[in-house]
């Protein structure tokens, strides 16, 4: 199924140098912003205000990082983000496993409509939900609370996770489950002991994508959280390092590097899974 013939033939048509230039352009435009914020983050506040002349800061220092980590609001916001995103990831994957299995294997009237709705929910305009949810959260005391965000983040994570897992369960042969059920296991036992172990790769993929999507949120956080100690990290860094006279990009960028690190690591270690999860069902 590989389309290598096509690739090789075009290789001759396109001059090698031009191709190398394209690859270089893609690399540079993908990575330049990172290198630039990395550079800025390694300056001291004093050097940053003075205006930097060289490509590298004159005295490379981690002082911006140290200042950030000495800042309790920033530390708290990191903790909040990790807690909220992990909670919504675990919860979504758990619920999506149950729903995906039922949609793939059990007889449910209107299964097609249910699946269609779950997918459509992922396209719902987030900002349209912010107002009504704000009113409800205000009544329920969920404003300024991690729980409110965990629930709201499901709109990012549940549709994708359910779709991924349902697709995966569809591909597992039913014979394993039948054998276990002949031995007297119940459906739930079969799901937990037979199906989930086989589906672990898909479960991990769903978890990684869910975490990345939850980590990406800004709109819900900036609408529901009002007390700085409750802020998520992406929300906290927006107003970071601003004094009356100057924006200290060195501190902002050090914070940016810190909150970028988890997803960069995920990408480096789980590139294949992420790509396969993102494209599942997209190209049939």
């Amino acid at each position, binding site marked *: 199924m590989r*389309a290598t013939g096509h690739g090789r033939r075009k290789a001759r048509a396109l001059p090698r140098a031009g191709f190398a230039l394209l690859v270089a352009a*893609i690399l540079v435009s*993908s990575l330049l912003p990172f290198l630039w914020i990395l550079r800025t983050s390694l300056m001291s506040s004093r050097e940053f205000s003075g205006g930097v002349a060289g490509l590298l800061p004159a005295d490379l220092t981690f002082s911006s990082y140290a200042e950030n980590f000495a800042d309790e609001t920033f530390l708290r916001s990191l903790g909040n983000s990790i807690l909220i995103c992990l909670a919504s990831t675990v919860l979504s994957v758990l619920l999506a496993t149950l729903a995906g299995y039922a949609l793939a294997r059990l007889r449910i009237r209107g299964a097609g409509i249910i699946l269609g709705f779950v997918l459509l929910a992922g*396209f719902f305009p987030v900002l349209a939900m912010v107002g009504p949810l*704000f009113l409800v959260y205000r009544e329920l005391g969920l404003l300024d609370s991690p729980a409110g965000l965990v629930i709201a983040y499901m709109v990012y994570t549940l549709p994708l996770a359910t779709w991924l897992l349902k697709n995966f369960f569809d591909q597992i042969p039913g014979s394993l489950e039948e054998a276990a059920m002949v031995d007297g296991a119940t459906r739930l036992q079969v799901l937990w002991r037979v199906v989930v172990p086989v589906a672990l790769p898909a479960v991990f993929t769903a978890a990684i994508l869910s975490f990345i999507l939850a980590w990406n949120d800004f709109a819900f956080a900036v609408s529901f959280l009002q007390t700085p100690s409750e802020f998520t990290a992406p929300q906290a860094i*927006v107003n970071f390092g601003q004094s009356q006279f100057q924006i200290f990009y060195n501190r902002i960028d050090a914070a940016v590097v810190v909150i970028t690190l988890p997803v960069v690591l995920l990408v480096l270690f789980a*590139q294949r899974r*992420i790509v396969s999860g993102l494209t599942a069902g997209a190209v049939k």
Partner: protein
Amino acid sequence: MARPSSDRLGYLLVAPTVLILLSITAFPLAYNLWNSLRHVVLTDPSSAGFAGLENYRALLGDPQFAQVLARTSLFTVVSVSVQMAVGLMVALVLHRRFRGRGLVRAAVLIPWAVPTVVAAISWKTMLDPQSGVLSFLFGVDTAWLAGEWTAWIAIAVADGWKTVPFVAIILLAGLQVIPGDIYEAARVDGSGAWHAFWKLTLPLLKPALMVALIFRTLSALLIFDVIFILTGGGPGDTTETLSYVTWREFLVESDFGGGGAVSVLMLVLSLVIAGAYTRLFRLDRREG
């Protein structure tokens, strides 16, 4: 193999997912519809009451809102077109075999994975007139975010940087399922690479192109984070988009009736676009 008890279990298993999604999507939609027909201004509780279509009339009669619609649409059309073209080019490059391809693919994936906040702040740093990369390399000290058109360019660049990788990944997956022997056959026919691209690659890539197009159009139409961080809707209100106006109505003006009306319009617009695309796609498949 389904036992009688399986049916009830099935509903039980999908219930939590469906209930949560209903309560955070369908319910807010209904609540918005209801609010959009009433006066609901939190800072002015005495005005509360039924308003009929007043919120919609105010919105549709407001020339500023017409501008918001126009600039959001213009941004969507222009930025999505460019993103699709660039994404296709990146996908074609990544489809070729070359040394270090795995590394380049990972590098391309990173902008997609970083939070939008990070993308926006990175570009804000890059474009800063004093400490930015353009001022460093070329001595350009344009205050990008201070002018209307330059601010839009900055927004499009920051948004495109994060979203082109998504287009590229989807299209690359589409390229990978095109069987290579089709091209062999075309080569026997003696048609050139350019011809093969237009006559074979593009038509066969259509499903992937449609998926990328739907996702990108809807999220460009609803752009919020990048605007909030880069410009806050400014200078003046020249970069306010649909989502931004919705947010301002809800959380700055505390007007949940007016915000509800914008939300309803925004949802209708998204559904119409999603519906139109899928219809087009289906018609197309039937003919093909």
